[in-house]
């Protein structure tokens, strides 16, 4: 039994001790390669690494993400100069991260500045992205310094040096004598950046900077430059340039990753908070002056919806509203459209998009990296009145359209069915139809004796219309409206075509009438609307001509009375009465004709019914 126990101990417990023993010893190799190392005010004792304070320990708050920096505590280096009223210290430092540290890159990085904040009056941090390997140096501009070479702005932050709150306030905070900047900007691995701190100090201050003995990002670049402008007297400005082969004491806490130039910002917003960014009013295509404006911007929330208002304003002091759109439930993306077309130039040169949130919710927006020299592409979340800048462009599309655009449904049950198949365009027969109507009215006018010349004119006009319509179709036009257009566009051709041979013309007349008749039958069968339309035209003409005729007779009567011609007036009155009674008689005659037809039809039906019953009775009799 004891042998078994020893064997079990050997098998399960000892390997653990052996394995642990391999990792107990830790060696830190450090190469401090600096010409100025003897100038350090404070030297860290590296004799016992286990008790030495490491750099991350000095962070407030403790790092949360991938931390980069010198592993040992930094040294404070004080310049000799005592500063006068007008002074500027520019500190530049080059760095290149590698992919083993931050993979593609980081989108949110807390950067601890190497500047000792004691005596600092103002601090501005800028981040430049170098575009080539040609190197850089610094040059004097007025009372400050900038870098030479090809570069673009990534970010620029003016630090509020009175803000000491880590969780509240702006994205910067001062803790102890160090300044922390939470930078929402894309930073890539394999790209050379220059960090620039511009500091102004209170009078009588003595600038001091933390330096590190290590290569902070293991990039083999130790390029640190500083320039101090100190106005001792108006005519005595002291400028000192420093070039150090050591790193300033900068360290990074990268707390959010980065895809290839695309990343998401996740923000908890309250009702009234907003996201805003500046844009330029879109150029219009040459052919139109009015377009609807549409903004599309995807988002992600827990329930896929967002209650928000989109406002598009002129980016001036008044923020004049150009258009706005609001919904209580945007679904997966905002698709805001102006209510009416916007005239060109309504937004001025520079405009501003403002998305105001109307609910408390966590929302994620996508941002894309578009660095440029002028630092145009950035957006600001204003949360509880405090601005938080994102140094990237919101991933949104702004477009123009001739019609307004509404968010389509993403529910498959709402998708539209297949479009209804339409026949090819039919020829119009308005000319023929109106012609037929005129012929009917004309014939009626002649028959009833209302006006023979008028009736004849209508018949001739109607036939002419039908002929014209037919010529139109033969010439390749779809109907009279097209013919009219065609005559304007190509008058000689149309006339030439119309005059091609008397035989063809006569045939066309015949065929035109035939077409008209066949069309009429088809139309009656197919289109009730045509029938109603056709009835309307003669009715309109009758309603027009009858009253005109009666009025003429009435005035003739009145004139005869005024002339004192009572016999003439009597004749006119007789005429009116005659026409009226004729109309009444005609109506009665037509009604009696219809009545007769009905009676005949009824008689025929009764006869047929009787025969049918008789036949049936006979059939049943045969069966019996």
């Amino acid at each position, binding site marked *: 039994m004891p042998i078994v126990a020893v064997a079990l101990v050997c098998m399960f417990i000892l390997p653990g001790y052996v394995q642990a023993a391999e990792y107990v010893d830790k060696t830190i190799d450090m190469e401090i390669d600096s010409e100025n190392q003897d100038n350090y005010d404070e030297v860290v004792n590296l004799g016992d690494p286990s008790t030495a304070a490491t750099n991350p320990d000095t962070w407030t708050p403790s790092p949360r993400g991938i931390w980069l920096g010198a592993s040992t505590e930094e040294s404070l280096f004080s310049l000799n100069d005592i500063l006068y009223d007008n002074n500027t210290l520019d500190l530049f430092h080059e760095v290149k991260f590698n992919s083993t540290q931050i993979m593609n890159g980081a989108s949110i990085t807390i950067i601890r500045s190497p500047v000792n904040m004691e005596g600092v009056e103002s601090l501005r941090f800028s981040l430049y992205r170098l575009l080539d390997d040609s190197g850089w140096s610094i040059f004097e501009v007025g009372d400050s310094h900038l870098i030479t070479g090809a570069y673009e702005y990534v970010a620029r932050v003016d630090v509020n040096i009175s803000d000491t709150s880590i969780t509240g306030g702006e994205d910067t905070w001062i803790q102890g004598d160090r300044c922390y900047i939470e930078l929402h900007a894309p930073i890539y691995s394999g790209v050379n950046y220059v960090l620039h701190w511009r500091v102004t100090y209170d009078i009588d201050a003595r600038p001091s900077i933390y330096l590190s003995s290590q290569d902070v990002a293991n990039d083999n670049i130790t390029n640190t430059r500083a320039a101090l402008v100190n106005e001792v007297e108006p005519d005595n400005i002291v400028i000192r340039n420093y070039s150090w082969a050591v790193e300033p004491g900068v360290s990074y806490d990268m707390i959010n990753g980065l895809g290839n130039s695309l990343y998401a910002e996740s923000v908890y917003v309250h009702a009234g908070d907003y996201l805003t960014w500046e844009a330029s009013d879109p150029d219009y295509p040459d052919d139109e002056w009015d377009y609807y404006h549409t903004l599309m911007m995807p988002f992600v929330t827990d329930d896929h919806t967002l209650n928000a208002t989109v406002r598009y304003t002129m980016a001036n002091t008044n923020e004049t509203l150009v258009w706005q759109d609001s919904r209580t439930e945007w679904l997966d993306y905002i698709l805001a459209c102006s209510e009416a077309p916007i005239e060109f130039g309504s937004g001025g040169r520079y405009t501003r998009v403002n998305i105001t949130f109307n609910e408390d919710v966590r929302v994620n927006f996508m941002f894309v990296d578009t660095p440029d020299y002028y630092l145009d592409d950035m957006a600001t979340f204003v949360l509880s009145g405090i601005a938080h800048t994102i140094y990237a462009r919101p991933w949104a599309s702004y477009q123009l359209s001739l019609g307004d655009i509404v968010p389509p449904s993403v529910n498959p049950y709402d998708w539209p069915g297949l479009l209804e198949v339409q026949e090819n*365009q039919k020829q119009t027969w308005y000319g023929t139809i109106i012609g037929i109507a005129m012929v009917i009215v004309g014939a009626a006018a002649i028959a009833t004796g209302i006006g023979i010349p008028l009736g004849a004119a209508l018949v001739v006009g109607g036939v002419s219309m039908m002929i014209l319509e037919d010529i139109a179709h033969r010439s390749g036009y779809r109907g009279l409206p097209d013919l009219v257009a065609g005559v304007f566009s190509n008058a000689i051709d149309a006339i030439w075509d119309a005059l091609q041979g008397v035989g063809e013309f006569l045939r066309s007349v015949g065929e035109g009438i035939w077409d008209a008749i066949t069309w009429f039958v088809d139309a009656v069968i197919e*289109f009730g609307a045509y029938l*109603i*339309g056709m009835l309307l035209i003669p009715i*309109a003409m009758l309603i027009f001509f009858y009253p005109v005729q009666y009025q003429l007779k009435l005035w003739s009567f009145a*004139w005869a009375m005024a002339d004192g011609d009572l016999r003439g007036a009597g004749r006119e009155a007789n005429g009116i009465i005659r026409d009226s009674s004729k109309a009444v008689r005609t109506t009665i005659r037509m009604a009696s004709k219809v009545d007769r037809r009905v009676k005949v039809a009824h008689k025929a039906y009764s006869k047929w019914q009787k025969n049918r019953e008789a036949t049936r009775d006979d059939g049943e009799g045969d069966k019996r």
Partner: protein
Amino acid sequence: MTTATDFLDLSLWIFDFMVKFLLPIVSGILAIIGIYGVFTRIPKTLNKWVWKQADEFQKAMRGRGGR
């Protein structure tokens, strides 16, 4: 694409044009001409009547004076 409804629209337009637009205008013109005619005729007629009455009266007076 033209349809039967287009034609109905055209017919309605013709109807509206003739009945609602042309008919009132023509009636108005006829009324103006008619009233003008009546007013120009009435004075002549009255004048004629007055002269006729005056002639009758004169004739009557002459006949009386002659006796």
